[in-house]
């Protein structure tokens, strides 16, 4: 198994990530974060598209959810808008949804009409939330079918890109 873990004590209290594990055998990323809010509050962010779009894309690539249904079998459609005004579509297909504790969904790319794009990578995700003494422990897991799909995701669709996100974090830390 090629698992690397780097449990961290966050250097900055604004960075709640406490653990990151990557498994290069299964193309899986697992991240743990601690939030100082109850699970009900965290769940609300994922259930309410207006809140979800505030956290999904960075300011440079804001997300707009035109459909969002956090129920078993529910679907979401969204797009992200680049600084040039170009839109990048995506969709979620919910599988199991267990309010305030976990949900699983597939996440893929959409065409201009926000219908699933063919022959494009799809990731499988599980988000779970657990009540702790100080708030909520969130565990995010994303699995990609193959190294090729992972590569494609980064090339094609993760428009927000690492650079933009790092800039965002820096701005947040400096604020």
């Amino acid at each position: 198994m090629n698992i690397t873990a780097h449990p961290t004590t966050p250097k900055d209290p604004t960075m709640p990530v406490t653990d990151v594990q990557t498994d290069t055998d299964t193309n899986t990323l697992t991240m743990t974060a601690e939030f100082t809010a109850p699970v009900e509050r965290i769940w609300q962010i994922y259930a309410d598209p207006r809140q979800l779009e505030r956290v999904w894309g960075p300011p440079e690539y804001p997300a707009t959810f035109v459909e969002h249904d956090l129920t078993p079998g529910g679907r979401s459609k969204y797009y992200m808008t680049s600084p040039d005004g170009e839109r990048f579509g995506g969709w979620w297909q919910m599988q199991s949804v267990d309010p305030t504790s976990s949900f699983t969904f597939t996440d893929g790319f959409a065409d201009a009409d926000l219908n699933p794009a063919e022959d494009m990578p799809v990731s499988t995700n599980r988000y779970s939330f657990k009540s702790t003494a100080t708030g909520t422990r969130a565990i995010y897991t994303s699995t990609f079918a193959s190294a090729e799909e992972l590569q494609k995701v980064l090339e094609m669709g993760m428009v927000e890109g690492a650079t933009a996100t790092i800039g965002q974090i820096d701005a947040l830390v400096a604020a």
Partner: protein
Amino acid sequence: MTDSDEDQADALFHALSDRTRRDILRRVLAGEHSVSALAEKYDMSFAAVQKHVAVLERAGLLVKRRDGRQQMASGDVNAVRSVSAMLADIEQIWRGRISRIDDLLAAPPDDSPR
């Protein structure tokens, strides 16, 4: 560079800073070796060689698999490093999302974005 990139670079340079480890890496890049076959090549204990192999493994330079009672090691720089680098990119995107959640939690409840 991000902290995780820096950590990865640290692990990489540490792994390559030792002559024995560079020698092990050259061998496993040429082909798969059992850890015990590697241990025979050096004038040190099996445990010491195993430790060197573990350092290379942590740096993503070497992969191990089990074959019966044997531990097989091979150098897999491209496959392993590229997947871990890609996962590190995804990690950065997620860190952005998580810190935005934290931000949103700290915002006043009536703070509407648009």
